[in-house]
């Protein structure tokens, strides 16, 4: 049962990283233009500024 001492924190931390990443994407408004984001991957222009 000692394995639980590792596994439970590991699963929580991994999930927590996912949550933190999601919170970051929401805060930086990455869900404002879902259709545009889907289309932009087809464009050749390099695009590193999210929004002026």
């Amino acid at each position, binding site marked *: 049962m000692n394995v639980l001492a590792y596994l439970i924190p590991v699963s929580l931390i991994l999930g927590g990283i996912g949550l933190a990443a999601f919170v970051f994407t929401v805060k930086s408004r990455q*869900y404002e233009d879902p259709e545009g984001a889907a289309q932009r991957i087809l*464009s050749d222009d390099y695009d590193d500024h999210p929004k002026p």
Partner: protein
Amino acid sequence: MTVAMRPAASACPACSAAPAAEALADAAQPSDVNIVLSLPSIHCAACISGVEGLLGATDGVRGARVNLTLKRAQIDAAPGTTAQDLIKVLENAGFEAHELDSTALRATETDKAGRDLLMRLAVAGFAAMNVMLLSVAVWSGAEGPTRDMFHWISAAIALPTIAFSAQPFFKHAWTALRAGRLNMDVPISLAILLALGTSLWETSLSGEHAYFDAAITLTFFLLAGRYLDHRTRAAARSAAEELAALEVPRVSRVTDTSDGAAEEQVPASELAIGDLIRVRPGGRMPVDGDIVDGQSELDRSLLTGETRPIYAGPGATVSAGEVNLTGPLTIRASAVGRDTSLHRMADLVAVAESGRSRYTSLADKAAKLYAPGVHILSALAFAGWFVYTLDLRTALNIAAAVLIITCPCALGLAVPAVTTAASGRLFRKGLLIKESTALERMAQVDTVVFDKTGTLTAGAPQVVNLNDHARRELGIALALADGSSHPLSQSLARAIRTAGIAPAKLGNITELPGHGTQATWQGQTVQLGRASWVGGGQSPDTCAWLRVGDTVAEPFRFADQIRDGAEALVTRLQENGYDVILMSGDTTQAVEAFATRLGIAKWIAEALPEDKAAKVADLTYQGHRVLMVGDGLNDTAALAGAHASISPATALDAARVASDVVLLGQSLDPISDALDTSRTAIRRIRQNFRIATWYNIIAVPLAVAGLCSPLIAALAMSTSSITVSLNALRLK
């Protein structure tokens, strides 16, 4: 927000220099302009890079970003750059563009509530997965200290999660309780808190059952419902705001300075009584007033439903909302802002609207039955078990189980899941649902009342007797019509050109605003214009008269073109058993002819705004449910008073505000789709309620009997929520 996006210290010197330079520029010129353009025709990756590339290469533009979902471009530009310049650049390249009033859009830009809900939803989802993982271990047989440890870890995850994620429910429940009411959020909050409380107690006593997973999944599903609801409403709101923002409220005010009259652009809200305002052809009157200078014709169809333009010269009175057709006019404002006739109409609307706000939605009706029922049931279970066993712990556990089982997960999803699916489907067909209960009300409609001008007709007159004229005359008429921006002239020119006739060669073409166009042709004077000016006779139709030299003037007769899909719509509605009525402010002759053409038996002509509202109220009183379709100011009160209402996107702002649904495209076809979809949607909502009830009927006796384990609670809750969502998806 911008702070997060700009790299703080970048390895690449150019990257860190660019924001710094931007910041410098911002500081030096604080009056950078922010322009928002609507781009209705963009749809692909090539459009995005095309628009951004074009705008980026334009002088003065510092940055441009296209949002494809909203079909908008945000532009940061140097002071002095105007939207007109950018629109010209885009239209030359084939992109349709319109300026949007950026102040009117502010509210949608910062959708704080939506992001807040999404965040809470994400936290609840994260916690639900982890706690469920631990709970599965307990259900599959973890015993003794292991089980206790799992319960404690679950508690450690659940408590902060609930404290954060369930806040919206707690807040709403608290406001309802303080006002002495019961709403859906009261049993929800009670169930969540009771589940947490008893689970903590059980865990501290090394008990077998803990409902941490139930409390969190409950929060997760309910938040999902709330978020869907919010998204639908936010999408409708942003589209509605965009329609309003398309009319940029700027007017040109004439000021007397020492060196003559000057014009300045000011917001309409800054006008005062007595101000002189210049209204160019094609512009809409911003205020009520009197004409001081200039001659023109006015299109009053949005106010009265009359199709025929009215002559206007100095001394004539104009009302806000009328459209100036031919010559520039200078008017002196006699009423501004809230005092204009446009706004006085709003009082009529307010009276009519109070009737509609009494409508209670299906969800509210369900909540009214549900909230007290659940509380009584759970209290009875608690009292019964307490009397039977005299054990507070058992009784409280069972009361909590009853609340969790009956908790309205499925009920909370039943309505928003369906309305989201239905509004999405209708939006793709070009209908914008503005009110959340509009679908329910449309499903009950049995009578459809149409306005004529601008609703069933396209509002653009078409010449009907082109064949009565000789080719030579048509050539002259074309050349004359080309010299004017009057809608009749433009329509005539288009029709003649389509017939394949070349313009005649004319000399000194001059337009007399309000009268017509005049020129010389082979030494003779030729005129195209109003009957009184050209010397034509009387005619019941809208006419433009052509006179060549000293011959008798010949009329070009115009009829309003029927809007796309109008005939099909009327036929289909009548086939489906709807009562169709035509109501118009136009003349009896015009309305009768039009009604016969469309096959509408019931029609009312020369109706004043009050008459229309009274007729709708009368029909409602007789027990009919009326759907009003109209676009003008004269329809506004009727739109607000009807059970449900639709207006086209070309309608006046006031009419759009008063209606539940806005028709975005040109065709009227989607209206019958809207009625069909609303009926299906209501069927689905009722089905969903039934599904949710069946789950309760099966699970509640188990809970009351004390046989409900956390596993059964989790299963019942998840399956009912998922079935309800899937049922809603069938609408797509």
